[in-house]
């Protein structure tokens, strides 16, 4: 089963301490090596993002940043896990590493299962 993990945080958190980069890099490397992470990436700030929205038949295009957003997605990873518990445990490591190596950081990871084509579109409820 594949899971998409979004890492979300306030956008003005500043630069991460070098030690966090180092530890995250090592852990990510291990996860890539063991095959539990198959893709991952960081996202540019929302100042460089564009939103195209359809509301009541009207299409509007807005450039970021979006003031109303408290937390934004800053990165993602795609996990290949044998169970949901495994995906959750893997994602939790990210939070624990932030707790240890970036004092004061607040944010979240969201674990979402990716539907396979065989399953058809996932239920919307």
């Amino acid at each position, binding site marked *: 089963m594949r899971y998409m993990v979004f890492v979300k945080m306030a956008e003005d958190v500043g630069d991460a301490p070098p030690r966090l980069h180092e530890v995250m890099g090592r852990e990510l490397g291990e996860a890539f*090596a063991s095959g539990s992470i198959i893709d991952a990436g960081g996202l540019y700030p929302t100042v460089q993002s564009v939103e195209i929205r359809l509301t009541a038949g009207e299409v509007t295009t807005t450039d970021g940043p979006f003031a109303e957003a408290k937390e934004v997605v800053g990165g993602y990873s795609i996990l290949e896990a044998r169970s949901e518990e495994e995906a959750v445990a893997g994602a*939790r490591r990210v939070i624990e590493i932030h707790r*240890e190596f970036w004092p004061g950081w607040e944010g979240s990871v969201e674990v979402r299962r990716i539907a396979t084509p065989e399953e058809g579109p996932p239920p919307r409820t």
Partner: protein
Amino acid sequence: MTSDPATPSTPATPATPATAAAAVTAVWRMESVRLVAALTRMTRDVALAEDLAQDSLVAALEQWPTEGVPRSPGAWLTAVAKRRAVDHFRRAETLRRRTAELGQDLQEAHVPDLDAAVDSIEDDVLRLVFLTCHPALPPESRAALTLRLVGGLSTREIARAFMVKEATIGQRISRAKRTLVGQDVELPTGRERDERLGDVMTVVYLIFNEGYTATAGEGWMRPELCLEALRLARTLASLVPEEPEVHGLQALLELQASRTRARTGPDGEPVLLEAQDRGRWDRLLVQRGLAALDRALALGRPVGRYVLQAEIAACHARARRAEDTDWTRVAGLYDVLAAAAPGAVVELNRAVAHGRAFGPDAGLAVLDLLDAEALGGSHLLASVRGDLLARRGDADEAVAALREAAALTRNDDERALLLKKAAEISSGPVSKPAQAVRRLHDTEPPRRQP
């Protein structure tokens, strides 16, 4: 326990005992290979190492559901297992002293330095893989023990994956662990290392193929087994990055696994490579496979069967449509593979590739040189011959060959496919050839029935 290496955090949600146990087991399984590997180095005994690792799981199951998952679960589990290991050696030492007091030789205290060489996780895991694929073990035991100790699978999961009774797998594993008692646990060097690495790659490939073309049970694939093999191949590539063949194996498995979704039709029937909907291929795995192949080739060292097979798989992966396949290159690669790793199945595939690249006569010429005995009465020879004859326009001979193949195969889906193809040829012009060739270009080894 008060001396935990990390402060536990509060449980995320008040979990039921069952879900809490599942969460603990999931964490333990992710850590278990490193745990067992480190404990094997310390104790030089795989069976004892696994027992100690299991002890740490029991402790976690007792404590985590109430106290929360520790911040660093791996460190917690390692600390518990080490304590158990020290207890074990102290008990053994006490016993030795008592024996000594009874008049035996008094030996130096032998409690191993459990904290030595903490930075050698990669070596630990590699040492463990070499042990679970040890030449002293029969091949089927190597696969089971590797899945158990390196993959972290339970005996029940392995039994289900191989469609074998749980007791059988259990016996296989315990016998294997007994066989390993007294074997040298050190990492082999030089030529022995190359040979042992070859053994390890064979085991991983065997596990993958067991999943990719299931020899028993319903359905012709067990994707979860393929995934385990893929994980093993990825791990191996990170442990031995200087060896092109290891990257080649990973590339081959990523590329073959990328086709999993496209290999069965709506009713579960097999769909052949050339008839597959390539839009259903897993692009992420294709990318990973091509990247692994690039890493293998970038080393600029001589390559062997896995890199060559991966290159062939890459030719298919790069072709957006079946008709875009660079068959000339595929045929050339099979020529090299036939020299590097000769075998009847490679020759069959070579015949198909030459038939596509240079016309059916070229393919039939390769088949003519093939010793039918070497295929052990497999239907594949007749199947490939039938396809090539159909392409040449020899309808009657093609139908006869395809019917012969249908009579030889033991797989119902395959028989239906061959007879359908024969019926199509006898009832009209050859419209879509190649349907009868199954499992070819997938570069799979000949399979033994279990």
